[in-house]
């Protein structure tokens, strides 16, 4: 949730300055921090034994499709309103992180409660 809050904060910062000139450094820092947190969460998740990965991917892939569509709609609104250059790049990357982040949350929440078969004794 921290990563999600960071990416939304970056989007709010940019959106509140557009269409005027906006210093990109704060938004870039928030984007980078969010991406690092997300990557860290995924790395920690990969180390969990017995995690229901099949269920995680089954749920996350469909959520990813839905949030890719929603992110695309938001991106279209920005492009239609002539956002360009550095702000567009940062906003686009923020939307990519957002579109990945929510499906990860949904997939993780489902998978953590999914019954996992114990590993065979001779493994």
């Amino acid at each position, binding site marked *: 949730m921290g990563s999600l809050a960071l990416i939304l904060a970056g989007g709010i910062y940019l959106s*509140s300055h557009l269409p005027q000139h906006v210093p990109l450094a704060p938004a870039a820092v928030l984007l980078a921090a969010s991406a690092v947190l997300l990557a860290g969460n995924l790395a920690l998740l990969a180390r969990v034994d017995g995690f229901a990965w099949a269920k995680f991917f089954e749920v996350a892939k469909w959520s990813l499709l839905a949030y890719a569509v*929603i992110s695309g709609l938001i991106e279209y609104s920005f492009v239609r309103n002539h956002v360009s250059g550095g702000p567009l790049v940062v906003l686009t990357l923020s939307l990519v992180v957002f579109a990945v982040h929510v499906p990860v949350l949904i997939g993780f929440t489902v998978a953590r*409660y999914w019954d996992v078969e114990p590993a065979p004794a001779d493994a």
Partner: protein
Amino acid sequence: MATTAVPIDAPEAHAGPPVERPDFEIVPRRGLIVVAVVFVGLVAVIATNKLWPVTFLHVAGGAAWTTLDLFLGFVLGPIIGRMPVPARIEFTTRLMPKMVLIMPTVVAVTLAAGWQLANLTGTLQSGNPLHGWIVASFIVVGVLAVVALGLLEPANIAVLVELKKPRPNPAVIEGLMKRFIYAAGVLGAMQVATLLIMTKLASG
């Protein structure tokens, strides 16, 4: 986004035979057609960039979002919490799949059309006297999004997946549904703030 708080917290239901549940789709496929139509309409409205249709989509979407959040959280949720477990399960399996489609749709429409409307009316410009209220609305929406996307929607999907199992675990469902109860206060406050901000923007 929010769905109703439906505490299915009856461990005694797990002691006997499985509680009967109607068959349901976690994501209603027919509803996807309606969602697609709405999104195509949104793209068309943004493309044409006319004030009336943009305002319509933003107001209609925002009103639906606010009303659903407040009604489900503070009216329907407590009522369902007092229903017998079988009735609660029946209601949940009928309502929550629809909410999986409805809430992301109204949120996406509201936000995209809202951005377009702010551009059209000039309130995005930092020199506009209402610009501060627009920024305030961004912050309110940001809080709503963190709660809804980070807490509630994952719980919504996980509850439905659990209910699809031959023997759902009531403790898992209870734990997930508690998120809705805890979040109801924050969501309610943010939605009231939204009403204050939006009426201020509309009245100048």
